[in-house]
């Protein structure tokens, strides 16, 4: 019965063969471990109708409600967007956009009236948006020196090569160096509420709390440690070419000046796509149940410093409320609903197919 011994599957893994002289010779028999014999216990999933079809229905049943929820949430978010680039002749900022030079001393201002047809409750976030601005260009993205921005004094005076050609100006190191910093957005936007009674009320815009916590507290630090005098700290450096004032004059607030100026930090967090928005200000909700932004007429006053016409860019101002899932984002909801429905539909179709055509195989399987 030799054949049976070798063919038989030894369920317990024991082949009892007493080779001649097996005792004396060192047996080279491989070890009988589950691993070596490839008998490790294993889970062998199979895509059967019993597992796949329910999976489809479950995915559908999960995705559709989520989608609906997202969609509703997104729809409840109020968002207002205004383009103030000034491309049209009719636009108030047309003039500013036409005659532009980086070094003009006289700022050009323009004011754009707009009407909010819905009142905005809770916090309102004010963004500026740029289009066709390639913050994600490889050369742009790398053109910064994180050591310098982290307050490294050596890097302050010797900016990294990555910053070229914005590393030195007039033989002085640029602080902050690099193309990103150099092209920092420097329009200033102000919002006025045109009271129905005719007065123009300036709305208070909060300029802190707009940057990531890690950026503000870890990544960006002013040089010179805790030295409150930034002018001293930035001694020997020069301002970026396009800037009007040095970095230590970005804000009067000590906690928001220099490298840790939040507008600067926000700008330095480069966008992934050529059309992007960045948080500019926050309109804090007022304490007494009053609407943050009531319905009515508003005026956006722009100090027009930032040229985008040369590369056909656009500038926008966006006002938006926010929910647990962030700002207005209809895509996610629709996508979820769509995917959920497709899954559900697929489940049904597969079920039909399985019942109509798939049966034959399974019955055959079982009879085997």
């Amino acid at each position, binding site marked *: 019965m030799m054949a049976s011994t070798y063919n038989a599957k030894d369920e317990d893994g024991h*082949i009892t063969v007493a080779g001649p002289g097996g005792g004396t010779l060192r047996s080279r*028999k491989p070890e009988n471990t589950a691993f070596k014999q490839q008998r490790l216990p294993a889970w062998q999933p199979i895509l059967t109708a019993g597992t796949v079809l329910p999976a489809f229905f479950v995915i559908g049943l999960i995705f559709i409600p989520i989608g609906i929820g997202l969609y509703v949430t997104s729809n409840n978010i109020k968002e207002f967007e205004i383009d103030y680039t000034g491309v049209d002749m009719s636009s108030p900022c047309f003039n500013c956009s036409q005659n532009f030079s980086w070094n003009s001393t006289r700022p050009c201002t323009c004011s754009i009236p707009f009407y909010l047809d819905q009142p905005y409750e809770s916090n309102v976030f004010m963004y500026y948006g740029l289009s066709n601005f*390639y913050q994600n260009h490889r050369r742009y993205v790398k053109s910064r020196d994180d050591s310098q921005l982290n307050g490294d004094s050596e890097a302050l005076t010797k900016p990294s090569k990555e910053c070229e050609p914005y590393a030195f100006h007039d033989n002085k190191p640029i602080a902050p160096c690099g193309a990103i910093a150099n092209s920092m957005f420097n329009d200033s936007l102000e919002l006025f509420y045109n009271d129905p009674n005719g007065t123009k009320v300036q709305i208070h815009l909060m300029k802190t709390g707009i940057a990531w916590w890690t950026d503000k507290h870890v990544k960006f630090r002013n040089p010179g440690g805790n030295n409150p005098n930034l002018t001293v700290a930035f001694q020997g450096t020069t301002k970026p070419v396009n800037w009007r004032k040095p970095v230590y004059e970005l804000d009067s607030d000590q906690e928001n000046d220099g490298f840790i100026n939040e507008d600067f930090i926000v700008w330095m967090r480069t966008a992934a796509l050529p059309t992007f928005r960045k948080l500019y200000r926050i309109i804090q909700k007022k304490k007494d149940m009053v609407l943050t932004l009531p319905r009515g007429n508003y005026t956006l006053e722009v100090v027009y410093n930032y040229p985008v016409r040369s590369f056909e860019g656009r500038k926008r101002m966006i006002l938006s409320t926010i929910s647990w899932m962030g700002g207005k984002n209809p895509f996610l909801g629709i996508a979820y609903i769509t995917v959920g429905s497709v899954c559900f539909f697929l489940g049904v179709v597969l079920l039909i197919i399985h019942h109509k055509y798939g049966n034959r195989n399974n019955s055959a399987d079982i009879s085997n």
Partner: protein
Amino acid sequence: MTVAKDISDKWFPIVLPLQRKKQTGLDGVKPKKRRTSEEERRVRANDREYNEKFQYASNCIMTSKYNIITFLPVNLFEQFQEVANTYFLFLLILQLIPQISSLSWFTTIVPLALVLSITAVKDATDDYFRHKSDNQVNNRQSQVLIRGSLQNEKWMNVRVGDIIKLENNQFVAADLLLLSSSEPHGLCYIETAELDGETNMKVRQSVSVTSELGDPNNLASFDGEVVCEPPNNKLDRFCGTLYWREKKYTLTNQNMLLRGCVLRNTEACYGLVIFAGPDTKLMQNSGRTKFKRTSIDRLMNTLVLWIFGFLVCMGVILAVGNAVWEREVGSLFQSYLPWDPPVDNFLFSAFLSFWSYVIILNTVVPISLYVSVEVIRLGHSYFINWDQQMFCSQCNTAAEARTTTLNEELGQVEYIFSDKTGTLTQNIMSFNKCSINGQTYGEVTDPLGPQQKKLDFTPFNPLADPDFCFYDDTLLESVKVGDLHTHEFFRVLSLCHTVMSEEKSEGELVYKAQSPDEGALVTAARNFGFVFRSRTPGTITTTEMGQTVTYSLLAILDFNNIRKRMSVIVRSPEGRIRLYCKGADTVLLERLHPCNQELMNITSDHLNEYAADGLRTLALAYRDLSEDEWEAWSESHRCADKATDCREDRLAAAYEEIEQDMMLLGATAIEDKLQEGVPETIAILSLANIKIWVLTGDKQETAVNIGYSCKMLTDDMTEVFIISGHTVQSVRQELRMARERMIESSRTREGEKVEGMEGWGEACFMGNGFREGQEEDDPDVEGGGKKLRCPPPPPHPPPPPPPASPPPASPSPPSNLMDNISGEFALVINGHSLAHALEADMEGEFVSTACACKAVICCRVTPLQKAQVVELIKKHKKAVTLAVGDGANDVSMIKSAHIGVGISGQEGIQAVLASDYSFSQFRFLQRLLLVHGRWSYLRMCRFLCYFFYKNFAFTMVHFWFGFFCGFSAQTVYDQYFITLYNIVYTSLPVLAMGIFDQDVPDQRSLEYPKLYEPGQLNLLFNKREFFICITQGIYTSVVLFFVPYAVLSNATQSTGEPLADYQTFAVTTATSLVIVVSVQIALDTGFWTIINHVFVWGSLGSYFTIMFALHSQTLFRIFPNQFHFVGSAQSTLLQPVVWLTIALATAICIVPVLAFRFLKLDLKPQLSDTVRYTQLVRQKKRKMVGRNVGGAWRGVGSLSEGRLGARSGSRRSGYAFAHQEGFGELITSGKNMRLSSLALATFASKHSSSWIDTLRRKKHTHTHTPPSASGECSPAPSCVSGSVPPLSNSSSVLGGSQDTPIEEETDTAPAQTTQTVPSETPATPAPASEAATPPGPAHAHSASILTPAAVRAHGGDSPGGWTLTLGTVQEALFGWKGITARTTASSSPSPPCSTKEASHVE
């Protein structure tokens, strides 16, 4: 590429510390270019100064490549010769150019360094072991004659021209000229197994003048000079001249002892070193073996090239995009982002961007691909090495994968070329049956019945060989009662041979036979009381029934291939002269005295019977010679012997003259023992659609015999064509006719299919008729020698022809027809015909004919022809070939086949050394191919599919991003992610899948050999699959880019900060990518062991851990310039929107895949899916019922044990001579006799008196005790297995039948014999399921192997042959080739049908 090339032959020496193997040189020797090519070699003995002039190589061998100092530079240099490494180095250099660099340098250097160091470590380990083995060999001791005295020297200090002394069983240290030996006439014996694999001993003789020198003192003064050929690798040739004392002596290979040989049976000998160290023929022969690549390798390389093309295309597209962008936008955007200094126009920028994108997109072919492939293969190799079921406990050898690069090709084999001797057979001959004076003896062991006990000869004959097995005690009785014929019969066996005996101590006889057949016969005679003790040139001393008899040997009429017989003429002590002859029955029966007619008929019948059992037969005869006759003949013989011209012919004529009018004594039947499990293995392999060709140097008859006994040929075969033409025309004609016959018969069968099964007999008859006709016009075939008759009443109808066969009427061209031949044909082709068939103009014809046959046997082929046949199939069929062999003559075939398998048998290790896989039993081949090969292929395919998928998914995201970042080669991901993605985040799960995955368990793939087919058809990974993979990868990349794009572009955090910043986008995309590919690998993994779980979850875990670590404040504080992503992970992954995005992307990526796979599984399940599914069902059931159904397989394992004597005796007699001629001469010349053996005669007689007493005593008791008392000796496993009989002709026509003992069947049958699946009905109409067929769907699945069609063998002459038509049923069950129209017609379950048929048969 890095590791691929040489991991095979470098890695494995580690596992084989066997120094001898090393010595034979796996790695070859670096050719020393130290001197200009040598024209001739002059060596003067004992003159070191003289010889030093020539600067011959010393005997120190060095197979290692490096030393400590050279290792690093040399190894690096070697590694950078690999294309892949150089390519990655090139990328690295590109990355150092700041204008181009889109990635940090470490993204390339980390993987590259990893790969280089892994390879370097491996190389270093290999080299270390090589150093070790070199040292070991170099430091062996040898005795060198220095200044007249023998001194021990290390091998490496032996110089050319030294005289060294060798002792018995020592390895020869260098190539020596034999000077003298301790044996007479300067003879010495060597074993050349290490050199050429031949185990038989060879004789070497020194030149007579030097043989007289004898002792060291004389030798020390020997100052002969040898002038000879330069070092070369020809093992069988040597020419040189010895100049000594003004005389010239010619030297040939006969005088040489080559390094690697072992001295045997010679006390000591002296030799002059001619070639040393690397110049020895052994080292010259150990060339580097040709590197083999698998087809997947080649496909992979093609695909990689395609991918490079694709990469360049992508690069060009993006560069063009960059040009356009820079012109349209970038130039305007310069106020914010000026061009880099050297860039002054958009075209240059585009050019740079092209290279930048080449860097970024190079991850479509990551360097880790090659490393991973190697790791997976290495893993598979270890699994082969570790497999207990491929471990042979008898020889204590486990299977061994000697190359690691070929594993997946084992899953694609279509052709197996097998050697016969030692591979299919054990090369052990056992005396199995005999016919004496019309009485047949020797029942073959019947494993079905109660185990017959082995005869115990010891009480009867103390000289008996204890290993001898015989089971019929009537023969022993017949000897004991002194039957004259029986005595004479064994006397022939004890006298008529050329065996040498050696008797170390009394009674301990060792026979040295030229052929195992002879050994078996002489041993049989020995056990039956006719013990051959010793011989001298003129005498043979035997012990006959305890009495020493010395015959004088008058003549040996030696064997040769034409005579096919040998005779001896002896004079008995009484003075009677008798000629004893043994030979092939075909030859011998013609030369009998007419009065033997009646006995001849009976014996002839017996011979037929034996032949039918696949035994090798010999007929024995004698002739009494009168003194005058002898004198007369002796005179004519002397004349012939002395003749100078045509000596051979004259001798033959003289022999012919005397070998006449002989009296028939009987016949012997020797079993050429098949290796264990050969028929089963062949059956299973052919079910797996693997064609098996036997290529043997053996004779046609023997080969055909073995073909039958291992079930390659069956009597059910429609036809067996024999091609043995001697001329080109005749071979061509025979091939054509065979082909026509096949087509014709195939058509007939088509017709039959329509008409029903009645036509079978006719078809068979026609086939038969043709065969007879063919034999008639073939003069070379002995009449009746191998008439392969069709059994008159066919026990089985043919199987339903595969539906693929062409419609009968279609006049399609023959080539198409040949592909669709239905029915079973076999082809036997002779060596000389093969030579013609292999000629260029006939190749095609031969291939198309041979490939239409189920079995092909090529006999009398030379080693070169073996390789040619393999090459032929490789060339014409584009199929994966596997050659399996055990001897040196198989080396060429093993090397030229895609996969070479060496059987580590008795024939040395030459084949094993040349092979890619080695194990000790042919039957392990089924496990190697069907289990390991299949798994390897499956795993490798799944691995590659997934690997390409994941890298496309990963890399193509950059492509899409290019359109949004001004084609600036900005990466989507963090550079660390890019570095680690392939080597950390996604490598282990796919490696685990590649190493551990199983679709079906091992026993199932043996159970359903059809599972092997996808590999042969290359279905799992081909260009189509590749495109599907990359399409899926690209689809995934689209989803992975555009879903985050769409979601994040407008989204903000819940704190109001926008999410569309680059870092958040990068983290989101990377996380989705990792999750999607992890889900995908989870879907792809079919066998979730704990390792897979650890790796999959571990990879995900490591991704998050590493990401959080890299984005942590700690690292940032230390290297602010390196870790820009500080805080990104935290703030991003806290956002619900991000997770929703990831979930959405995952769902969009996976759902279509899931739906597609489900549909495929549901509508077009592969066999493996079905098996897997049934497995699942079975497991559930097992859990429920708690019943062990595993017995089914066990039943199959024991199939085909039964001796099925039902074959209708088609006579395939073979004659059992396998030995060389010329030994008779050596014996009569007495050259090979030792003085000690001449003295044996006296010794034997001294011993005999006590001996005979014992015999008498024993004989007395023996007759009164039942024989069972002495049967304590249970046969050794090999005995039993050796008698595994050829299977009956009632076996499945598919050739896959298995036979099982009744007792096995009865307990499994009720469970298994369930509903005969409809399609089976046409397959087995005549045979019937004897067992009841209760509808038992619960056990139905187990029936798939033990099929319901248990058949009682047709014809009552077998004790019960149960046949299971494994193949038929599988074919039917799984409808692999679709179910025929017939099948669907008879759709009702068949139990009633089969019972009806049962009664019909009964």
